[in-house]
């Protein structure tokens, strides 16, 4: 065999090995993680496609159809798969729209809070002078219970969608900032940073093209996982009545709505409550699997 074919065989073997051990592969070999991923994809599709797949109008109330149990078929033949709520609105449609709101609010929080977090984290890693003050600030944020942020903002701005998003964004900053700083610190020690500087690139270009793009994937993974936390916190605040007000469909305030009928008609509160639980559970299972896959030290 010639050297060339040997090298080619080597490359092929390496490629196969890499594919076998790729993060996606490892995740799919872990049944709970694969299940969680599948569930989240379905939930996300349901949320995005809510206006097209919802069987009924989520806001159309009807006194004749109040508090029907799951599986109810109305006299004119319409199926209410998950029953109806206290105002006769279809639960399944409200859940689909609620998913949209709950996940959307979480996503806004991760985007805004995460963006600020990335900025703080990378600046702390790039400019060593800023490291201590910025990270102290993050420590203070991290140590403060997020529900208190929610309470305070709802008190000052009035309960609603806006104050909820602001509170969740603030709560999302510290985790992402720490991850970004950790990832950026590793990249800072790479030779290409030095090379870039030697080429005469400015700070802005170095941070944007070299630093951020190289820790992008790590940050993205953790940002996705933070989404689970933001959804959890958002639903709790919304349950307390500090988020969007009715008739807005959001899983937390739907649960609070159904609380009054808990004894006689448990499905009104339980269905949205369990939906939140399963979404957050899926994010956490996926997160644990990802962390194991990314950290070879724990994989044994």
């Amino acid at each position, binding site marked *: 065999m010639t050297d060339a074919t040997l090298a080619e065989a080597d490359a092929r073997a390496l490629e196969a090995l890499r594919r076998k051990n790729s993060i996606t592969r490892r995740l799919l070999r872990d049944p709970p993680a694969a299940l969680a991923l599948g569930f989240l994809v379905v939930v996300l599709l349901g949320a995005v496609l809510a206006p097209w797949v919802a069987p009924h109008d989520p806001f159309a109330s009807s006194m004749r159809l109040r508090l029907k149990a799951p599986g109810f078929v109305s006299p004119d033949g319409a199926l209410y798969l998950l029953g109806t709520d206290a105002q006769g609105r279809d639960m399944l449609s409200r859940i689909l729209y609620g998913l949209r709101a709950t996940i959307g609010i979480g996503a806004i929080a991760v985007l805004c809070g995460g963006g600020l977090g990335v900025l703080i984290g990378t600046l702390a890693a790039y400019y060593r002078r800023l490291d201590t003050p910025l990270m*102290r600030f993050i*420590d*203070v944020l991290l*140590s*403060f*219970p*997020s*529900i*208190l942020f929610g*309470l*305070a903002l*709802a*008190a*000052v701005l009035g*309960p609603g969608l806006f104050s909820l998003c602001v509170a969740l964004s603030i709560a999302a900053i510290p985790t992402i900032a720490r991850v970004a700083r950790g990832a950026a610190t590793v990249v800072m020690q790479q030779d290409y940073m030095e090379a870039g500087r030697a080429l005469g690139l400015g700070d802005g270009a170095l941070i944007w093209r070299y630093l951020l793009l190289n820790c992008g994937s790590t940050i993205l993974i953790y940002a996705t996982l933070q989404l*689970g936390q933001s959804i*959890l916190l958002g*639903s*709790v605040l919304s*349950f*307390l*009545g*500090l988020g969007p007000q009715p008739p807005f469909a959001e899983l*937390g305030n739907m*649960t*609070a709505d159904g*609380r009054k009928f*808990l*004894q006689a008609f*448990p499905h009104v*509160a*339980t269905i949205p*409550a*369990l939906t*939140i*639980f399963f979404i*957050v*559970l899926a*994010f*956490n*299972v996926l997160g*644990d699997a990802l962390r194991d896959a990314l950290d070879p030290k724990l994989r044994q």
Partner: protein
Amino acid sequence: MKTDTRGAMDDVFALIVQRLIISIPVLLGVLLIGFLLLQVVPTDPAIILAGPTASQAEVEAIRQQLGLDRPLWEQFGLYLLRVLQFDLGRSMISNRPVLDELQATLGPTFELMLACLVWAIPAGIVLGTQAARRRGQWTDRVIMAFSVAGVSMPIFVVGLLLIQYVGGAGLLPFQGRGGPLWTSTGLLHIILPALTLGAVFIGPVARMTRTSVLETLGADYVRTARAKGASERQVVLRHALRNALIPVITLIGLQIGFLLGGAVVTETMYSWPGVGRMAVGAISSSDFPVAQGAIMVLAVSFIAINLVVDVFYGYLDPRIGQR
């Protein structure tokens, strides 16, 4: 020996001072929010104080007396002075001093948190140790599955399920506080709220205990203990678990602050007359002075709890103070 203890005391003291300095920005932020809340109040306090028959001049005089004609930053200074004298204003609904309203709520909140910790910490440690001992077996898997589920469960879901299946079945009361804890009604009333609050606390404690015990089980001193013929029980309890507890206590300390957030939800669900319920109630009924007072109390207790945990931690692990 004597100088040693004094050195340790100095370390603890330095730790307290350091923590207090970190708390100052948080405290100032909270005070600013409290001040802003009182600015949102739609009515002019001077007009209310002067009464309906007062002339414009009298209202002006009262405005001056209250400092309402000064610039905002000066008013903020006056507000700080009032807060330092424990004057938090009056409720807009009951017209009672905010401080009086708050005082009645502190006890129940403290009681609830204590009742939660009393069962949740031992339960978490026992579960985590069991999981570590039977690593990889089904006991471990079941315990860890429960712990992940516990972390993922919004606290109100636990509450709803307990109210529906335990409270709804008439097994335990789920409305309000039943009096002091030493009476049987008082004790019965706190069971469900304490279970709810504790349910979200067990998961992290069990997880951390498992990781930490797994680490100490592989340590040299555990192998030595086994080699000298100690029983498995002794090895786990006296050698592995005892050394594994420090990270667990750190985690508990970190989580206690978040327990305060959980208490807000639990109190609201069970009509438990605590600070959290008062805060939520005041915000939804726009009683700004009470909301301001309740949020401030929650924030200050959070800072205080953290301080106590830090000092306790420094005391428990002498290496911390020396850093």
